């Protein structure tokens, strides 16, 4: 690229790549956010649920008579009242061959399948009155034997976690290369380990919230829903309640965090819709924190046995992995609970040239809350197992952790590359990232400091972890399996009569800054400032249909959609300007709110003038002139099935070897998400992601007792990462745009979460190495570290 080309490109895209602040953030800073939990509608009723206190049991009797008489109560519903209005849902997809799951419906019918399973719904004037009545619902459940542990659930005589199951195995798959056994047979070194990854959960600060509002007169259902995926829910509500899709409107206003947790279907949201359909009144349900813990999806819960074969020089030859993941009594709908494990076995060894591989996945039912997709689906597990084994190999061979990775990563000039698990990588930058991280963290100085402190009995550890992240998925994720989950996104861009721009787009905003990057991208196509682009998201009535925000597709796919729509409108504006100005549109361009001469940059006419003429004086335009000033574009990726990104993280920790308490001192990330649209937002996505990875590495775990009761279901006992314990995070970038799109952007939302946990795990093990102690279970609690050190 010549210097002149670069200047031209910068001139054409003056806002892409800039650290624009989020305009919408101002509302939140003033307390003017509008969340579903804030919404109040006329005649609105509040819902509360009676839940099973047992993990497994048979409903003998539900007596709601006293509850119905309680002050303020309008109705009490049980399965008999609500379930017939809803077509049951089943969380299976065709591309996960022969997976099974029992059908689900709104309220428990005969059996309760986890502690927290909703059994009855109370609707009252206030939430307090609804809860008063919940206390009066008499529930008689005959307790049954619960499946709690996954391994035990797989034994032949284990009770079934849900009715109708032949076994507790939801899904099993094996992927392998031809020579994996030979690779192990001929290996100079084999390192191995059994790993346990605890269950944790999203704990969005705004709990799940919904206000369902059915107007019988117009047969219109409007659902204000704190979700990432309004179109998906429009489709679900229409199909499962037999409504016309065009009469179902889903609005996702401000959403107080989602992270994948708010795109699954839940009993309570379906109950709110069903109740509103029955009563013709708005019904509000806001999960309280206790309900969140026993009804929001949980994540992870894996037990992995793995080994890695290396030759004498430390070249990785193969991995063999057996992952058992425990998902609750059902597979979630509509995305299943299998995608997590599927990604675990496919992302193993992803950064490395490793030629051979065998991965076995078993997905197992049990009587706990369902697990499913949560930020960085599968990545942290695959990354942890791989990188922990690489560190073990480095120790075995006496090689520095950076060195062994440098020997094994796919070289930056070796792309495209197909991994042993079958993933096609367009272009990644592991070597560049390794080099950059080493500089950024001043690795050698840290090692020297570590050695000096060790002399004084202070045990610090350094851990590093390269990672590969899946972003920009096409239909390969869900669509091919029969799920009605859009792989495409849509944008409508229009020039207003006063020359400003509005963009309605299907991707959604939960604080990542989606609206800001879309405004930057559209602004660059139309020669305006981002502040002049009003972006609308999260409403199925006012935005075009699309997949919305999940699996790191907002920037890559949504951004490309906006870019293409913007360019289309640019073409329309220039064509109209050409007619008005009697010029060849090819000689015109858009800049600074004007139509300009493409060569000289001389202003020819303001955009406002185009808007005025097209809107108020179309009579002055030539016949057949297109005065629409509105462009729609829908885009789905058509090249690689996914755009992979990569990066590397490092963690510096200090372990108090007497108490087992770990202090996170600092964290580094070098990340390559392709074209960076807004560095301010990208860096904060990474930081937030890192902390969401560090939480479960050290603190977060849904604890269950032997009867299937979750025993720490409150924010006092479930330990989320807080400000005092989290480190400062230094970030560097490498930019390798994808050639699949014009924009070249890939996703970044899951990068931080993917490798942060194992960076910390490797750092802790590095700190413990003088004691020959090792930890292979997360969270790394003081108890587990003390056990590893032999104090227990």
């Amino acid at each position: 690229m010549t210097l002149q080309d670069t200047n031209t490109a910068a001139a054409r895209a003056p806002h892409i790549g800039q650290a624009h602040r989020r305009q919408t953030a101002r509302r939140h800073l003033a307390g003017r956010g509008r969340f579903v939990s804030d919404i109040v509608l006329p005649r609105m009723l509040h819902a509360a649920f009676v839940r099973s206190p047992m993990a497994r049991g048979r409903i003998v009797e539900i007596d709601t008579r006293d509850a119905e008489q309680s002050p303020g109560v309008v109705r009490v519903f049980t399965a008999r009242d609500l379930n017939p209005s809803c077509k049951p849902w089943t969380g299976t997809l065709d591309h996960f061959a022969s997976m099974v799951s029992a059908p689900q419906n709104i309220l428990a019918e005969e059996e309760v399948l986890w502690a927290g399973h909703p059994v009855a719904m109370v609707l009252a004037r206030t939430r307090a009155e609804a809860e008063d009545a919940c206390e009066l619902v008499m529930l008689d459940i005959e307790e049954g034997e619960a499946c709690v542990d996954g391994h035990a659930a797989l034994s032949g005589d284990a009770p079934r976690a849900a009715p109708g199951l032949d076994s507790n195995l939801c899904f099993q798959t094996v992927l392998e290369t031809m020579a994996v056994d030979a690779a192990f047979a001929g290996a100079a070194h084999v390192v191995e380990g059994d790993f346990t990854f605890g269950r944790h959960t999203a704990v969005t600060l705004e709990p799940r919230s919904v206000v369902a509002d059915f107007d019988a007169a117009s047969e219109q259902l409007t659902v204000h829903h704190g979700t990432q995926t309004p179109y998906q829910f429009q489709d679900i509500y229409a199909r499962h309640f037999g409504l016309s899709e065009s009469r179902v409107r889903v609005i996702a206003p401000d959403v107080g965090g989602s992270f994948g947790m708010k795109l699954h279907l839940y009993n309570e949201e379906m109950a709110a819709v069903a109740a509103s359909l029955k009563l013709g009144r708005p019904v509000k349900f806001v999960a309280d924190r206790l309900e969140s813990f026993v009804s929001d999806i949980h994540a992870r819960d894996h037990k992995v046995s793995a080994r890695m074969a290396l030759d004498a020089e430390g070249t990785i030859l193969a991995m063999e992995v057996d992952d058992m993941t425990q998902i609750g009594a059902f597979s979630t709908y509509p995305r299943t609970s299998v995608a997590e494990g599927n990604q675990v076995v496919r992302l193993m060894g992803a950064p490395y040239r490793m030629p051979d591989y065998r991965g076995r996945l078993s997905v197992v039912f049990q009587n706990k809350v369902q697990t499913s997709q949560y930020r960085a689906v599968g990545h942290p597990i695959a990354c942890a197992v791989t990188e922990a084994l690489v560190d073990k190999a480095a120790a075995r061979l006496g090689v520095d952790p950076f060195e062994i990775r440098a020997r094994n990563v796919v070289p930056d000039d070796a792309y495209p590359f197909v991994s042993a698990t079958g993933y096609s990588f367009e272009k990644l930058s592991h070597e560049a990232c390794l080099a950059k991280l080493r500089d950024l963290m001043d690795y050698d100085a840290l090692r020297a400091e570590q050695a000096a402190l060790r002399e004084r009995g202070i045990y610090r550890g350094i851990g590093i972890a390269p990672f590969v992240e899946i972003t920009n998925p096409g239909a390969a994720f869900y669509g091919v399996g029969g799920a009605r989950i859009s792989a495409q996104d849509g944008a409508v861009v229009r020039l207003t009569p006063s020359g400003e721009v509005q963009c309605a787009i299907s991707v959604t905003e939960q604080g990542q800054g989606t609206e800001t990057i879309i405004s930057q991208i559209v602004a660059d196509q139309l020669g305006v400032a981002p502040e002049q682009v009003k972006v609308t998201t999260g409403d199925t009535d006012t935005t075009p249909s699309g997949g919305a925000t999940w699996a790191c597709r907002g920037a890559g796919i949504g951004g490309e959609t906006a870019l293409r729509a913007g360019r289309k409108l640019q073409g329309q504006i220039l064509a109209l300007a050409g007619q008005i100005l009697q010029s060849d549109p090819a000689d015109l361009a858009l800049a600074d709110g004007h139509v300009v001469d493409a060569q000289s940059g001389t202003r020819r006419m303001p955009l406002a003038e185009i808007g005025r003429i097209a809107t108020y004086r179309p009579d002055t335009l030539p016949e057949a002139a297109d005065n629409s000033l509105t462009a729609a574009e829908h885009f789905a990726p058509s090249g690689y099935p996914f755009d992979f990104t990569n990066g590397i993280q490092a963690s510096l920790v200090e372990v108090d070897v007497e108490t087992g308490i770990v202090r996170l001192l600092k964290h580094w990330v070098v990340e390559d998400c392709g074209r960076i649209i807004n560095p301010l937002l990208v860096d904060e996505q990474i930081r937030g992601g890192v902390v969401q990875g560090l939480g479960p590495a050290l603190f977060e775990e849904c604890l269950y007792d032997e009867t299937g009761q979750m025993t720490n279901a409150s924010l006092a006992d479930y330990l989320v990462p807080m400000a005092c314990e989290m480190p400062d995070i230094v970030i560097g970038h490498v930019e390798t745009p994808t050639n699949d799109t014009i924009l070249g952007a890939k996703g970044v939302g899951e990068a931080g979460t993917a490798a942060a946990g194992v960076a910390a795990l490797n750092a802790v093990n590095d700190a413990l190495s003088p004691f020959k102690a090792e930890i292979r279970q997360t969270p790394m609690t003081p108890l587990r570290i003390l056990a590893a050190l032999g104090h227990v």
Partner: protein
Amino acid sequence: MTMDIELTVNGEHVRESVEPRMSLADFLRERLQLTGTHLGCEMGACGACLVLLGGKPVHACLVLAVQAAGETVETIEGLSESGAIADLQAAFHDRNALQCGFCTTGMMVNAHALLGDNPAPERAEIRDALSGNYCRCTGYEAIVDAIDATARKRASDVEAPA
């Protein structure tokens, strides 16, 4: 049973009849439509509902509305409209120290109180002051940066008045 209470909220005299069981947070949100006070845990563990009661940050979920009778309450809306936190808001905005916005109002109330008590906090002191404010989105560093920047800016504005 309901009780009549009178209190001052964001400088306005308020008189309402409430059930004793109603929390100050529900009172502010439902009776006064001050929905900038958020509920994240309803047990004092997340900090989303912090308001100033008698000038000090407290959990509005742990105080009953009847306990606040006769007291002075300031919420994010009042602090914002009075201009008292304009520089903090600007610093949060510049640093992108918020994402979904749900924790943000409690963070602002707490940051405002912290800088009132300790105009030049160390980073560790800022983190300590925020030890009861949960944020799932940011990872905290940007929030610490924004509060730190505000403290420094206030200090330099004092040294070199415009």
